[in-house]
């Protein structure tokens, strides 16, 4: 239990998927103008990550990993080169499901998220989490916790930058830096403060 807790804290703060690995930047920059929308997208990402990470774990360790197909009489088969395309397909399918659920239960959020909801499917943070999960040899339970932790870290980052961008609406930014430019600078400054946790081993 303590290990799982430290894995969670690790993936939220120390190895923050966004501010330490810089994955999922596109929607982080694009959907952070409004705090409510950012919160909605954050929850969607947490949900998608918590589901895709264990599903991909099952598929990888049940079908793709070297020797995983020994139950079918094929112990030498190594299908792990298929992991990218399989993971992407699984993620796309689950995002479709999330999209339909949000459309049904919260049309307002569906409308505000707009094109960025289907774009979660190509959000690098989602695929990145699945690949990290394989690379670090997590167990099934660990992969769930890692998925939820990565999502929480991503949400923390996007909600706080949304609040900052609300504050910098009053800023007088030089012409060439307006919009994305200043947002990238803010993201860089945030990443610098998140370096506070680098070096901690839990």
């Amino acid at each position, binding site marked *: 239990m303590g290990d799982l807790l430290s894995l969670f804290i690790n993936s939220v703060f120390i190895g923050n998927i966004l501010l330490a690995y810089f994955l999922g930047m596109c929607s982080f920059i694009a959907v952070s103008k409004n*705090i409510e929308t950012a919160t909605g997208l954050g929850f969607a990402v947490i949900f998608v990550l918590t589901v895709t990470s264990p599903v991909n774990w099952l598929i990888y360790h049940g079908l793709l990993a070297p020797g995983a197909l020994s139950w079918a009489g094929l112990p030498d088969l190594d299908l792990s080169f298929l992991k990218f395309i399989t993971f992407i397909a699984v993620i796309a399918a689950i995002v479709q499901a999330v999209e339909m659920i949000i459309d049904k239960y919260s049309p307002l959020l569906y409308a505000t998220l707009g094109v960025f909801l289907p774009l979660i499917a190509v959000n690098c943070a989602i695929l990145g989490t699945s690949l990290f999960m394989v690379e670090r040899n997590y167990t099934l339970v660990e992969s769930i916790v890692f998925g939820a932790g990565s999502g929480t870290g991503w949400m923390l980052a996007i*909600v*706080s930058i949304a*609040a*900052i961008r*609300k*504050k*910098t609406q*009053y*800023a*007088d*930014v*030089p012409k060439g*830096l307006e919009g994305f430019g*200043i947002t990238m*600078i*803010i993201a860089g*400054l*945030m990443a*610098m*403060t*998140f*370096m*506070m*946790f*680098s*070096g*901690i*081993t839990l």
Partner: protein
Amino acid sequence: MNPLKKLFDQNEPRFTGTGKYKKFAPLFEATKTFFFFPSPKTLVMPFIRDHLDLKRYMSFVLIALLPVLIFGIYNTGFQSGLALGKEFGLVKSFLTGLSYVLPIIIVSYGVGFFWEILFAVIRKHKISEGFLVTGILFPLTLPATIPLWQVALGISFGVIIGKEVFGGTGRNILNPALTARAFIFFSYPISMSGNIWVANTVDGLSSATALAVTAINGESISHALSTAGFSLSNLFLGFVPGSIGETSALACLLGAFFLILTRIANFRIILGGITGLIITAILFYIIPEGQGTWAKAGPLYHLFAGGFLFGICFMATDPVSAPGTNAGRWTFGILIGFLTVTIRVVNPAFVEGTMLAILFMNVFAPLVDHLVIKYKNSKRIPNV
């Protein structure tokens, strides 16, 4: 008529309207209001009466920093003497300290004002007094032996990326002085590592800061600290090596008292920070892990060692980057205290956590404010 006023009045046409030096109007205006109250009056509502304009506000912070600065200069000289194996007298310590500290301050102000004026002239905004404080806070957070080009680089980053790209004082998200320090800290870790008086002394004696001390052979941390010369009273008064302004808890508290009395700094942030630090230090003291490390140092050592009091009194209370709601200020302070101790104890990469804790909470200050306001709105009786 006052001759000074006459001089300004005579030269005013050159800087206004179609005057020859119109471009440098911000510089003229800044110099003039340094000596005289600004004459323009508010013409339309809302009217707010207050004796504090930004310039007075910032100069009060400078007054509050005087004890820290003077003691810092003295202690720098005193410590450099100790590193050479001699005990300097009062005057000698002060003069030696001045020879270290003055160049750093001059570079910090010179380079910083260069960028301020450049941005003010090109972007046609006024020169803000905020830099008077940033330009002195930054040197006070540095070790006295830092190379001067690093000071120049740091203050450039702090002023440009930390403040001017957002449009100048009042619009930045992080404290510019701390942004500058963090940039130098991550870029040149060796000159910021806390081991000062190593490179520039002939019979180089290394003196580490109190936070770098760990106990060995099962002795307690407080025992190890006092053997290394860091007794509680020494840490409180500040006769220890460290960054220029951070060593003396007493001088920081004097400054904080003045700032709270004149209502420049918000007492909630300072009290919240100290409370958070004490509670966290007690928690780490109680849990049985980490014998002989800073986890067992207890609240008083955590409070007086390192740069916590300097940070919480002068950096965290920056009204721009701190939250604007009272509940937010308490949260902000308490979390800074908590994170400072946590980084000191848990993170082996950094011995001191104050700077990063304050910057981290600066990032979350707008979110804290947003949550406080949202909570208060939810408590309000809806319009019927």
